[in-house]
């Protein structure tokens, strides 16, 4: 049940953002600070989502060569930096995860 509630909330929020300035009256402008802040939203939010997956285990900082997710994630970052291809980044990251799992 809660998945459908989550889904409905996500749909409403997302559509409201998409429609926002397309339905607001012509007189309303975008405040400059909001416009500047919006620029940093994707990088900040996306990083906050993937970083714990690489850096934490059971909510504790987990650095070191036994952390296969951190190693595989680093490979993915390097591939994304060099080639900027989503499919190559995911393929390399998954391959590296299995490789490091097998090695460690």
């Amino acid at each position: 049940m809660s998945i459908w509630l989550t889904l409905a909330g996500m749909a409403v929020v997302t559509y409201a953002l998409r429609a926002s300035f397309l339905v607001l009256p012509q007189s309303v402008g975008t405040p400059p600070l909001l416009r500047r802040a919006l620029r940093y939203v994707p990088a900040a939010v996306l990083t906050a989502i993937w970083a714990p997956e690489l850096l934490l285990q059971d909510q504790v900082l987990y650095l070191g060569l036994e952390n296969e997710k951190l190693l595989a994630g680093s490979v993915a970052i390097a591939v994304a930096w060099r080639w900027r291809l989503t499919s190559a980044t995911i393929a390399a990251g998954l391959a590296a995860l299995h490789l490091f799992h097998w090695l460690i």
Partner: protein
Amino acid sequence: MAFDRTTFSQGFRASLPVLLGIVPFGVITGVAMVASGIAPLAAMAMSVFVFAGASMVATAQLLSQGTPAALIILATLFINMRFMMYSASLRLHFMHLPLRWRLAIAYLQADNVYGLTLARFSEHSGDPGKLEYFLGAGIPIWLAWQAAVLAGILIGAGVPASWRLEFAAPLAFIAMTVPLLRDRAMVAAALAAAVTVVATSGLPLRLNLIVAAGAGIAVGLLFERKAR
């Protein structure tokens, strides 16, 4: 209003190369959603009603970490805030249209559609067929996305857990984040978010996500001011 078919098919043709990038990401999104335990029907409904890949992959990951619904919706708000930027700039081109068309444009808005149409409008600013171009690009992208997610859901349901495809979700986010890091302020924003999310991981309800997003945005703005 006469429908300009020539411009529509120009938009359609412009969308074709983009589909190559959309289809794999749609498949990954479908796989990630079912790998994290979302029922196939709910996953497909999410694709149709939310129609925003990044927030769907995030939901998959957050649900598997036991995040409460309210926080997932809040995370969706943050991840999809870029659509507000898109609507602010599309408004300059579409404000003259009747409301029902603007509501349709709002639904079809996606990163690639926005990118394609804005590139076109910057070259043909006085183009009368803007709506047709937007629809010509937006409709095939929508169809390809839905077909790809459906394929991913069907594939994902049959893949053994030992393949660890759920790791595709953070990897997809890495692929989306890295190209954004074009200047120092952006890198600083991402680093601040990463440090904060880890440092505040003890907070209840995964609130560290929201705190980290705020910290990242603030640090980005501070760096921008310093650089000037």
